[in-house]
């Protein structure tokens, strides 16, 4: 009906039945807000987790030498596998899918600045290690580089918490000297605060990093504690792992099928395992929201049935005036869509408000802050539209099927 009459009637009814319209619309408002907020939480949680996984490193695999459990080529089982620095180059050379690799040395050391001394985990690594492990420096600093490595420079990169412990707040340590095991080290950078939900040998913010070449001269270690490498494609990580067993197995004479010979932590695995969980969780939250919305839709449909009943005579009059079934249905459906659209509109703003307000509670660190994605909004609009349509359709059909003579007597 190309006329404002429909809207007039709608607003007439709204005025006459304030409470009823309010309650009906509230159902939709609540349903919309609940759907969007729940899904936004699912999103936020996922993003939060992903960020934390990436805190440890991206496409990262960590390898420790193990103890052989199978005899191999006349050699007994129970032999330790201990890496050397050459293994890094060998792995990169023989397995093209390994994009970066670094040995990792570790030891304890006393670290002093001024009158403050802390005892810390000291990690000796290659510059690539920082890239793989997402060691992003704060502005003004840098991670270790090739020159540091080649010249065994006494430079040090501080974990965020160590900086705070040694320097306190407000002092930029970059360019200052700290003493490590009695030797002065130049601070080249400080780790930017990062989230991390998994670790080995402690959080990255509580460690300090020096070139592995420097580490070896100071500590006298000849074998790295472990190695890390990055794979080109996380989906092919398992195949790369098998290659690593093969290559190192050849060098250290162990059976490539000997799972005890190397301990491998493939972080691609962990994220991959979590992903379906979060996807499922998000869908689960979405379904709960949608059911809330459907309940709101049922409320709307009920009200539309009441509206049809109240307007029975009017529908009869319109039929007598020559209104077709389509005319009668159109009005009821448009009204139902109006209710859901208005409810959806307010519901969306409540959800949006929630999205903005939630971070103020500072709970994001634990559960992540809700994120309303465009997809969520798009799907919500589609669902609200369908619910409005369905909630209007059945009452509208009842209206259109009224017998005009009976309707006029109502």
């Amino acid at each position, binding site marked *: *009906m190309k006329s404002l*009459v429909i809207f*007039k009637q709608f607003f007439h009814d709204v005025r006459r039945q304030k409470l009823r319209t309010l309650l009906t619309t509230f159902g939709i408002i609540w349903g919309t807000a609940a759907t969007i907020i729940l899904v936004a939480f699912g999103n936020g949680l996922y993003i939060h987790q992903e960020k934390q996984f990436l805190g440890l490193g991206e496409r990262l695999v960590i390898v420790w030498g193990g103890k052989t459990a199978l005899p191999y080529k006349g050699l007994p089982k129970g032999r330790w596998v201990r890496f050397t620095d050459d293994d890094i180059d060998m792995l990169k050379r023989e397995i093209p899918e390994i994009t970066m690799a670094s040995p990792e040395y570790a030891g304890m050391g006393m670290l002093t600045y001024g009158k403050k001394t802390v005892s810390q985990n000291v990690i000796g690594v290659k510059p690539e290690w920082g890239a793989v492990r997402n060691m992003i420096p704060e502005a003004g600093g840098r991670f270790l580089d090739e020159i540091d490595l080649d010249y065994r420079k006494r430079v040090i990169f501080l974990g965020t918490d160590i900086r705070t412990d040694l320097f306190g707040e407000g002092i930029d340590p970059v360019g200052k000297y700290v003493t490590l095991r009695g030797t002065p080290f130049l601070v080249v950078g400080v780790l930017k605060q990062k989230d991390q939900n998994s670790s080995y040998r402690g959080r990255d913010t509580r460690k300090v990093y020096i070139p592995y070449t420097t580490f070896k001269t100071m500590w006298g270690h000849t074998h790295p504690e472990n190695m890390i490498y990055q794979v080109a494609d996380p989906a092919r990580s398992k195949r790369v792992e098998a290659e690593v067993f093969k290559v190192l197995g050849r060098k250290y004479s162990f059976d490539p099928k000997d799972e005890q010979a190397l301990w491998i932590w493939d972080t691609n695995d962990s994220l991959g395992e979590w992903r379906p969980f979060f996807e499922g969780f998000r869908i689960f939250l979405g379904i709960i929201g949608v059911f809330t919305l459907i309940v709101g839709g049922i409320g709307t449909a009920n009200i539309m049935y009441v509206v049809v009943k109240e307007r029975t005579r009017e529908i009869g009059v319109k039929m007598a*005036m*020559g*209104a*077709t079934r389509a005319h009668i249905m159109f009005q009821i459906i448009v009204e139902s869509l109006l209710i859901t659209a208005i409810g959806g509109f307010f519901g969306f703003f409540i959800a949006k408000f929630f999205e903005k307000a939630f971070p103020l509670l500072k709970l994001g660190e634990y559960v992540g802050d809700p994120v309303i994605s465009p997809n969520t909004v798009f799907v919500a609009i589609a669902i609200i539209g369908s619910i409005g349509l369905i909630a209007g359709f059945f009452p509208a059909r009842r209206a259109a099927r009224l017998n005009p003579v009976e309707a006029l007597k109502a």
Partner: protein
Amino acid sequence: MNNNGHLISMKNVTKVYKTGKIHVDALRGVDLDIGRGEFVAIIGPSGSGKSTLMNIMGCLDMPTTGEYHLDGRPVANMGIHQLSSIRNKKIGFIFQNFNLLAYATTFENVELPLIFAGKPGAYRKQRVMECLENVGLANWAEHKPTELSGGQMQRAAVARALANEPDIILADEPTGNLDSKSGGEIIDLFEQLNELGRSVVTITHDMNIAHRCHRIIRIMDGLIESEKHNGNGRDKNLTQD
């Protein structure tokens, strides 16, 4: 085609209402022809079948048996859509209690049949104002029905009935809720419309009104009991000829 040029032609029309096991014979075989330009009153006691007859005439209801031709076309074969279209274009209904939409203005009420007919906005505006002028309500276009008197409301209803220039006006006790002066004005309007060639059929209890029509049809127990022509003095008794 068997209408003999009549606008309305009914042959042995019956209507049975079934409510559960109770059957009510509302019409028991009505033969009736109404020509173009006739002005007809239908009278009879309550429950005699007047309204049923009018509903069938207006294509709001279908006969149980019998033939009904409207403007030469058999109504029985029509689909729902076609019936809507006939009610919209060929018939103008007027009710005892006006049945105007309370929330809409006089203008919008009259506009309704034009909207259902799918007429463009500019035409609707012009046509609504024409109709309102015809019934003397041009100055009341933007008023709500509640702001009108009973007589004015019924005149608005007449304007609405005229919007699509129907062949026939069907009025069900149009003066029943009006004082005699307002009622008289409505009948004056009907006479004017009739003089311009439009057929008018009205149900009434008021013999003063009935006597202003060309023909009075008396219904009794679902049958036409008698027919009387005014003016030319022709009287005849017809029960199912």
